[in-house]
C-alpha cells in the first residue's frame, strides 16, 4: 500500500506546516469531527506541530464513545441470555455499561463474539438456526450501509434468528447541535471523509452558511489532516465559510448513491441520545417498521432499561469541545484507560484515551505508572 507512505511523507508534511504557519495571523479553533482523525492527530503528534494559534477541538465523532450507556446496558442484557450469540466489533467489548462490560459477560459464560463484518454475524445465524444471533450495529454513516445491507439480506434470505441492536448516529445533526450551543467555540470543521464518501456533501452547505463556518471534508492520514487544517485556516483568515472537499480521492459530491438507497430502505431517522451530550433530534437511525422483525430491541425485553451516567465524567463537555481531556479533574487520576469513567477514555479513538496514551508526557496531571514486569 505505497499510497499510505506517501500520505505520511515528512517532507510534504513540513511544506504544509510551513504554509499553515505562514497563513495564520490570529487564534482559530477547529473541530475535527471524526474519532479516527483524533487518533491520527495525537498518534502522529500533529497538534504539537501546528502553530499555537491553531487549536484542534476533538469532536463527538467516535461511535464507541457516543453510544449511550443505556444502549450498552441493553447489549449486556441481551448478550447474557443463554439462547443468544452476541456479535460485535471488537472495541465495543471493553466499553463499560453499568457495572460490567461485554468481556465480563463472556467471562460469565455469555456467547460474545468479535466479528469484522456484520455479514459474519449473519453467517453465524445461518450456521446456528437454533440460536438467536444479535449484531451490535453502532456507528456513523460509515458503518451504517453494511449494517443496512446485512438486515436487508437477512430479510431476503429468510433468516429469522438474526436481529440487530441498532444505535446509529449521523454527523450533520451533531454539527448543528454543537454550533447551536451558546458556549460553542468552534470556528471551523474538518468533516469526516469516510462519512462523506457515503453521504456526499449535500447536507453541509446549509450548515456552513447558517453558522458561518468553513467545513472542509478531510481524510485520515497525516497529510490529509494537515491539508484539511490548511484549507480551513485559509478560509478563516479570508473571512470565508464554504464547503471544501480536501478528500476528493474518496469523496464524490453525491456520495455513494447505492449505499444511500440502502440506508433509505432499511433505516428511518429518530431522535438519539449521545453519550455525554444528551438527546439530539433526528440525529440517529433505527430500523424502519418494515424491518422491525429484525430489531433486537423489539425481540428482547429491554425496553424498560433506563440508565444514567456517572456525574464525575465530563466527557460530554470534552465531546463538545468545551473541555480538553486533561482539564477534567478526573483525568489520569480517577479516570484512566484502566479505570474509565466514560467512553471517551475507553475507546482508543476517544479523545481522553488518546491524550492519556500519547500525550501524558506533556500533561500537568500524570499518574503513577501502572506498568510492571509481566511473566
Amino acid at each position: 500500500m505505497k499510497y499510505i507512505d506517501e500520505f505520511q511523507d515528512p517532507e510534504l508534511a513540513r511544506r504544509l506546516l510551513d504554509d499553515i504557519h505562514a497563513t495564520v495571523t490570529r487564534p482559530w479553533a477547529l473541530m475535527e469531527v471524526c474519532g479516527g482523525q483524533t487518533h491520527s492527530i495525537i498518534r502522529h503528534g500533529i497538534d504539537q506541530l501546528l502553530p499555537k494559534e491553531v487549536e484542534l477541538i476533538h469532536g463527538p465523532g467516535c461511535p464507541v464513545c457516543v453510544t449511550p450507556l443505556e444502549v450498552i446496558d441493553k447489549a449486556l442484557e441481551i448478550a447474557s441470555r443463554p439462547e443468544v450469540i452476541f456479535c460485535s466489533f471488537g472495541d465495543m467489548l471493553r466499553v463499560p455499561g453499568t457495572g460490567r462490560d461485554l468481556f465480563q459477560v463472556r467471562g460469565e459464560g455469555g456467547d460474545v463474539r468479535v466479528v469484522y463484518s456484520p455479514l459474519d454475524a449473519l453467517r453465524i445465524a445461518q450456521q446456528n438456526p437454533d440460536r438467536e444471533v444479535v449484531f451490535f450495529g453502532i456507528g456513523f454513516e460509515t458503518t451504517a450501509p453494511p449494517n443496512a445491507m446485512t438486515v436487508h439480506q437477512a430479510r431476503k434470505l429468510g433468516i429469522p434468528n438474526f436481529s440487530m441492536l441498532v444505535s446509529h448516529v449521523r454527523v450533520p445533526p451533531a454539527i448543528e447541535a454543537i454550533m447551536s450551543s451558546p458556549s460553542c467555540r468552534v470556528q471551523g470543521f474538518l468533516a469526516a471523509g469516510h462519512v462523506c464518501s457515503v453521504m456526499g456533501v449535500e447536507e453541509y452547505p446549509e450548515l456552513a452558511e447558517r453558522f458561518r463556518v468553513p467545513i472542509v471534508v478531510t481524510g485520515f492520514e497525516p497529510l490529509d489532516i494537515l491539508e484539511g487544517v490548511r484549507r480551513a485556516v485559509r478560509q478563516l483568515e479570508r473571512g470565508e465559510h464554504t464547503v471544501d472537499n480536501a478528500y476528493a480521492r474518496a469523496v464524490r459530491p453525491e456520495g455513494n448513491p447505492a449505499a444511500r438507497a440502502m440506508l433509505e430502505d432499511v433505516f428511518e431517522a429518530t431522535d438519539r441520545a449521545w453519550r455525554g451530550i444528551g438527546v439530539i433530534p433526528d440525529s440517529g437511525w433505527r430500523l424502519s417498521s418494515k424491518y422491525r422483525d429484525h430489531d433486537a430491541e423489539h425481540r428482547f425485553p429491554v425496553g424498560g432499561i433506563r440508565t444514567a451516567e456517572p456525574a464525575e465524567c465530563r466527557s460530554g463537555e470534552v465531546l463538545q469541545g468545551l473541555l480538553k481531556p486533561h482539564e477534567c479533574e478526573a483525568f489520569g487520576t480517577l479516570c484512566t484507560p484502566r479505570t474509565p469513567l466514560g467512553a471517551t477514555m475507553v475507546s482508543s479513538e476517544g479523545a481522553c484515551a488518546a491524550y492519556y496514551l500519547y500525550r501524558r508526557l506533556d500533561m500537568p496531571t500524570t499518574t503513577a505508572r501502572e506498568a510492571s514486569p509481566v511473566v
Partner: protein
Amino acid sequence: MSDTTDLPAAALDIEAWTCPAPVRDRPRVVMGHGGGGVLSAELVQQIFAPAFGGEVLAQMGDAAVLSLGGARLAFSTDSYVVRPLFFPGGSIGDLAVNGTVNDLAMSGARAAYLSCGFILEEGVELDAVTRVSEALGAAARTAGVEVATGDTKVVEAGHGDGIFINTAGIGLVPAGVDLRPQRVVPGDVVIVSGAIGVHGVAIMSVREGLEFGVEIKSDCAALGGLVDAMLAVTPDLHVLRDPTRGGLAASLNEIAAASGTGVVIRERDVPVPPAVANACAILGLDPMYIANEGKLVAFVPREHADAVLEAMRAHPLGADSVIIGEAVEAHPGMVVARTGLGGTRVVDLPIGEQLPRIC
C-alpha cells in the same frame, strides 16, 4: 457536570454506581488477563506472587536464573493454546519449542532440555497429534534441545481446544553474562532483530479468515544461535527480551519500568513490513502491540552497539536488525516514540488485548 441523559438529574444515583473497569473488582477471568499487558501483570502481582512467595519469582524475567550445584541455571515454562494448530510458517509444535527456548535465550542461556506436557481434547484426530508432535520434534532438533520428559492428559470433548501444550526448559547461563533490565543505563542503544508484528498478523489472517493481499508467514524461530552470536561480541549486553504477547511495546515498557530509565524510539526506524502495516491499518491495530515469535529486542552499551549490530546482521535470524532508539534519563519508566512527522507520543503498556477498531 453536563446533564448527559434524557433523565432528570434527580434520577442519578451516583452512590449505586461503581466503576466497572478495575480488574481486582472483576469476579472472573477475562481474556485480557492473558494479553501480556496490565491485566496480566496484575494477575501475577496480586494473586500468584503473594500466594507462591519466593525470591526467585520476584525476578519476573522471561526465565528465572538459579544457582544450583555451583552452576547458574536458567529455568522457564510456557503454555501454548494457539488456534489454529497449524498456521502459515509454523504450528503449535514449533511454538512450544521456540517459545520456551527463546525465554531461556533471553537470559543468555542455551536451552539444553525441555519437558513437554500435552493436554488433548477427546475427539481430536490422532493425525493432528502426530503432525504437531513431528513439528515439535523437528523444532527441538533445529534448536539443539532435547525433549527429556513429558506428560499427557485427555480432557472431555468441549473442555479443551484440540491440543494444549506446556513446555518447560532448562539451560546453563555462561559465566560473565548477566542480562537484567536493572542493568540498563541511559545511553544504551535499543536494537530490534527484524520486522515486527509478523506472527500476530499471520495468526489473525488464518483465524479470522482475513486476506491482506499476500500470505504472511509467522516468524516463529529459535533465537539461541542469534543470542550466542551477540554474546560472542561481548558478554556485557544489558538486557534481552522476546517481544511475544503485548508486542514490542510491552517489552520496552517492562524494561523501562524495571530499569527506571526512559526509552525513546524513532518510529520510522521500527521495521514494520508493508503487509503488517496494511493489516493493522485495516483492523485499527498498532504493530507495536502485535506478538512476535522469532524476534528479540536488546539494550546494548553504546560502545558495543555497532559490533553487536554487525554480528546480528551476519546471522540469518538477525539479517534485518536495526537500531530503533535508546535509553534516556528523561521520563523514567516511560517509552516515548518520536513520530515520523517530528511529534512525540507515549507508547504505553497495553491494558488487556488489542481490539480491532470500528472506524
